[in-house]
């Protein structure tokens, strides 16, 4: 199993890559989204809530990630992209998206996900055509990076749930967060 193959340091974190647990994870996420749809009645509000919840997860998850993966500070956006795709996504979702479509200035890139564990078995009904089902992920990325002093904009530009061939997340570097820098980082 994936858990056996993953390195010793990542004990208990590869919950989502373990075959038995991914069903529960997919079902839990689905229950969350459908409840939000009932509570908020319009897709835009649900999208915002998912982003907010993702943000609250991200600000906590970053510490778990740093504590377990031991990666050092990234000094440019390319390093950041690598760490996100090859270490973070692997660790928490068991997938390794590919990094493409770099902007000429090196401040924007896309993550292409061949498969998305959150949407296993999901079909978007017609009355929810503007719902960004996996928007939680955008919030997670935004929150996590904010805690390491990077302000980014994250959004889905392609979604297999909407008929696209792949799921594409676009990440844009906005600025370095200069206030409250930890000592030694100035």
């Amino acid at each position, binding site marked *: 199993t994936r858990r056996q193959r993953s390195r010793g340091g990542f004990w208990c974190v590869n919950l989502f890559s373990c075959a038995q647990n991914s069903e529960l994870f997919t079902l839990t996420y689905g229950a969350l989204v459908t409840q939000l749809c009932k509570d908020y009645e319009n897709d835009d509000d649900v999208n915002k809530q998912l982003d907010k919840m993702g943000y609250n997860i991200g*600000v*906590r998850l*970053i*510490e*778990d990630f*740093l*504590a*377990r993966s*031991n990666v*050092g*500070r990234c000094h440019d956006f390319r390093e950041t992209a690598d760490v996100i795709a090859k270490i973070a996504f692997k660790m928490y979702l068991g997938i390794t998206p590919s990094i493409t479509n770099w902007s000429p200035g090196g401040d924007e890139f896309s993550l292409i996900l061949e498969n998305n564990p959150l949407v296993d078995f999901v079909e978007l009904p017609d009355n929810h055509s503007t719902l960004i089902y996996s928007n939680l992920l955008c919030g997670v990325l935004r929150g996590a990076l904010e*805690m*390491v002093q990077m302000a980014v904009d994250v959004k889905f530009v392609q979604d297999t749930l909407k008929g696209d061939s792949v799921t594409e997340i676009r990440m844009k570097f906005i600025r370095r967060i200069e206030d*409250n*820098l*930890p*000592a*030694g980082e*100035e």
Partner: protein
Amino acid sequence: MAIFSVYVVNKAGGLIYQLDHYAPRADTEKTFSFPLDLVLRPHDERVVVAFGQRDGIRVGHAVLAINGAEVNGRFTADGKDVLEYLSNPANSPVSIRFGRHRLSSNEKLMLASMFHSLFAIGSQLSPEVGSSGIEMLETDTFKLHCFQTLTGIKFMVLADPRQTGIDALLRKIYEIYSDFALKNPFYSLEMPIRCELFDQNLKLALEVAEKAGPFGPGS
């Protein structure tokens, strides 16, 4: 007990967790008749021994209790000034408990926030660019080890100078924090950590680190 204390400081420099892991040294309680053969003087908010040592009472020890009742800073339990009380012959014989003053939680808060500021000086003084802050502070009785995460949280461990394995312990404390504090949805970020599981697991980690002792893997 070779690991003395653990401090966790949030990004703003506020102390959010503190644990003392050493057995406090015994206090000394003795009965005295007038006049006292120790010289006492006020210091900050306490009354301390300025001169005279006997039977385990040392210079610098504070008056902790009089006649069994704990003193409140410079005043007895019933509000009288301690030095006045002790200089009145009518009050002798009197039983006084002396001991090393333990830091109050306010004092710890202040010291932690002071260290937070000092930590930055380490990187400012450095001749090299991009230096870290203060990672270790050494005195003759203890070493203070500090680890700052990329997110700005500091974990500090005060230990015996000969204790090894503190770097690994600091990383372990970071893991325990990310598990039992952060994964607890009822814990708010940057606030004081009041999670039972965090306490328990931290104490366990300290015991494991102590057992490894000075003969364990190098720090």
